[in-house]
């Protein structure tokens, strides 16, 4: 854990590093030729003033920012190179401070201890009978299953620095990872969270104290992004275990990530390289991919709406969704506890920053499991050297291997199976429809689509056969109910579980049984839950990408 003193050191290190980079070629080949000091300042001024124009003019922060940039503008008019440097320093320092926030290690420690029992206590208020009765209080740890390669994490953490990279479906993810890390007896992770989370009425106040630093996605200034990246790098090099969601933002489509943000991902490569070049003790960085699989997703409705809008090119940042509404939280948690739903947090195999698996002792292994010296990847004539193009390529490979691990560690719930089966049947019935026409042809209000139960059961059975094969080949994971359905050849148990979940949390049931037919009441959500099984080429279904074509959604 960082002391206040160390936080200050971190801020100054980041500032120094960003300043040093200005005027030298960028890591990112797409960034074009290096900017001069003056150009960088002009650019920042332009982007920030552009951003401020769209903000609420009465907001205190906005006013302060406006003042700052007005002053800067004035001073910049007749600044010499030395003064320009000082101004730049001011900006980066300001950015870094804002990113670091008011992090207090003491409060943080306390919060990590108190949060899980508090969440449990909150839930006991849900059922009066449970509260007053003799029945057991629901416990979070019975609903969040922490599994996978967790045994080595403690040892790896002692030998190096962890970068936990989970899939991202919900804003609950960071809280759950916090919970998992706590349960595993590991110290808390540092992570960047969107500004909207800090403004969230439910968790906003705790964010800094949960180890979060601020990421303001409205700031498009390249200097800000550089500062952010430097912050992540430096905190890694300071030995802080990090959490970041490599997909960038929550999966809009419901599918697991298809591409990752290489900027932040690259920090693990560059931090390892810097550690080696500086001869730091315990220089190793271990990347730990991890999947978080929900049977129901708190913000599913908002996310899939955004995906559909996004594919239609209207891009916006979600600030207000289910995550900021108490009653949705309560509904969600109530559903989870009442239906005995399990959220799976599954840790995959830890990797070195090149994507090679590491053993319990942190030694990198080649594809055939032979120990290798990963340092060699940086070496030219025996020396570790800097080479941004090379490291970008290593990052690309790391991305590929994390994605492959995501795909293997994805835990499939009954809701995903039922949604996939129903969507497939509906799609096959209307082969000439594109996605939008298909989705708008289904659901209440229009001619509601229904499917005969035996037909759905048969489709599920075929799907389960394929899933069983993939599971046996280690390509996917299955939740306990899905496994039960396969081993007992009992489709009914899966169907019941899925219908129960679908009928419980969402305002409209996603799928509802009436007599011997299944009615799809929310086509978009059906599509959302179906997408979790996308990309496995199951039942010869077309991939999500083919629905959208090039330039599709963020995650495709």
């Amino acid at each position, binding site marked *: 854990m960082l002391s206040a003193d160390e936080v200050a050191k971190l801020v100054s290190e980041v500032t120094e590093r960003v300043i040093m980079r200005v005027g030298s070629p960028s890591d990112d080949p797409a960034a074009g030729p290096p900017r001069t000091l003056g150009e960088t300042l002009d650019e920042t001024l332009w982007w920030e003033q552009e951003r401020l124009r769209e903000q609420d003019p009465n907001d205190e922060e906005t006013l302060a920012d406006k003042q700052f940039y007005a002053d800067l503008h004035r001073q910049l008019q007749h600044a010499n190179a030395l003064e320009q440097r000082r101004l730049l320093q001011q900006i980066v320092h300001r950015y870094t401070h804002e990113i670091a926030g008011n992090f207090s290690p003491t409060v943080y420690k306390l919060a990590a201890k108190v949060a899980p029992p508090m969440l449990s206590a909150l839930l006991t208020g849900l059922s009066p009978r449970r509260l007053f009765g003799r029945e057991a209080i629901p416990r979070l740890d019975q609903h969040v299953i922490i599994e996978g390669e967790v045994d080595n994490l403690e040892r790896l953490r002692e030998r190096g620095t962890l970068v936990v990279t989970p899939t991202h479906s919900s804003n609950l993810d960071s809280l759950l990872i916090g919970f998992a890390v706590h349960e595993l007896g590991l110290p808390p992770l540092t992570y960047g969270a969107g500004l909207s989370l800090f403004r969230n009425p439910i968790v906003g106040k705790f964010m800094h104290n949960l180890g979060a630093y601020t990421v303001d996605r409205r700031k498009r200034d390249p200097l800000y992004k550089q500062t952010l990246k430097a912050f992540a790098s430096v905190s890694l090099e300071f030995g802080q275990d990090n959490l970041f969601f490599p997909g960038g933002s929550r999966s809009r489509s419901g599918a697991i990530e298809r591409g990752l943000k290489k900027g932040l991902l690259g920090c693990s490569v560059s931090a390892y390289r810097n550690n080696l070049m500086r001869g730091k003790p315990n220089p190793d960085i271990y990347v730990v991919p991890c999947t978080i699989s929900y049977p129901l997703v708190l913000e599913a409705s908002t996310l899939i709406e955004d995906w559909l809008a996004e594919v239609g090119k209207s891009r916006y940042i979600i600030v207000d969704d289910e995550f900021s509404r108490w009653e949705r939280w309560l509904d969600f948690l109530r559903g989870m506890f009442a239906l005995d739903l399990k959220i799976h947090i599954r840790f995959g195999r830890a990797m070195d920053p090149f994507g090679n698996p590491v053993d319990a002792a942190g030694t990198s292994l080649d594809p055939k499991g032979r120990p290798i010296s990963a340092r060699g990847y940086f070496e030219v004539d025996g020396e570790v050297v800097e080479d941004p193009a090379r490291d970008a390529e290593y990052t690309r490979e790391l991305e590929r291997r994390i994605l492959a691990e995501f795909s293997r560690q994805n835990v499939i719930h009954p809701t995903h199976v039922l949604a996939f089966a129903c969507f497939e049947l509906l799609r096959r019935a209307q082969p000439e429809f594109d996605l939008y026409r298909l989705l708008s042809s289904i659901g209440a209000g229009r001619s509601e689509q229904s499917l005969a139960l035996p037909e759905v059961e048969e489709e599920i059975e075929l799907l389960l056969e394929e899933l069983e094969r993939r599971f046996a080949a280690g390509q996917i994971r299955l939740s306990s109910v899905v496994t039960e359905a396969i081993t007992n050849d009992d489709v*009914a148990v899966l169907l019941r579980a899925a219908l129960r979940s679908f009928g419980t949390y969402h305002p409209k049931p996603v799928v509802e049984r009436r*007599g011997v037919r299944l009615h799809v009441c929310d086509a978009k959500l059906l599509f959302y839950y179906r997408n979790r099984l996308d990309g496995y080429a199951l039942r010869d279904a077309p991939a999500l990408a083919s629905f959208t074509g090039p330039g599709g959604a963020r995650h495709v």
Partner: protein
Amino acid sequence: MAADHEAPEYELIRAPFPMVRKLQRTLASDYDGPAFIWDIDKTWLDTQISQVKGMLKIPFEFAVDKRALPGTTALLHALRGGPSDRAHRPLFFITASPPFIRKAIERKMLIDGVEFDGITYKDQLEVFRRREFGSLREHTAFKLGALLLLAQVFPERIKIYMFGDDAERDALIYCMFADICAGRLRGTQLVETQIKLGVLQHYARDVAALAEQLPAHERVHGVHINLIRAPDGRRVLGYDDRVLGYPSAGAVARVLHERGLISERGRDRVEQVEGAGEVVFGQAPRDPDGWWTPREQLA
């Protein structure tokens, strides 16, 4: 039949008795397999709807807090699945519970995965509004009416298997229904028998009028009574052996499996939960004319 404006899938029925019904399946006219008709209170759920106190409690409870009688949910799954586990056999509920607790009940069904094709609630509010307070706790006319309305939409060759409990008059009402279907109990005798049981005259007449429209056929093939009040089966002994009482879901599951109605797996799953005791068959000799209803109950 009017529709409920708030929830259009429910029909408001006023004759022969005020009730609210949801039907979600139409059976093919040549269907000659089994259909199951279940009571809810004390047959499936461990509730006390017959008592005002119990009735008031239900809407304030969460669906998950309601308890099913041990093994009955598995029994419902087994019956629905049939010998193949996949048959989706017709399953209907008739309950004296008032419609205002339908959300809680149907939610419980969703949570337990009880698939049903129709459910009829007794419209207690309407009975209250009519100031017929005696009919609040007397369910004969309601149940006969609800059963007859179902029989009307059923294919003629269907085989009905009925499930109730011994806390009320389920056995008697089911037997009367069997005799009505077969054409033995109709007209004045039906009216008088109901009145003898405490049914208001106008309801008794309406039930009889409805019965008159039904073509005479044997439809009922079995009556199964959960022994909740008298576990020794005392309250079914007066019927013949077409009526059986069961002390546990597992006990009746064994018989149902022998009779080819549920699969072995279905039976095992019920027994896993609760399988104690053995069923008790009615002891009265079979009536030569086929009557299910004991003569002394008839007017």
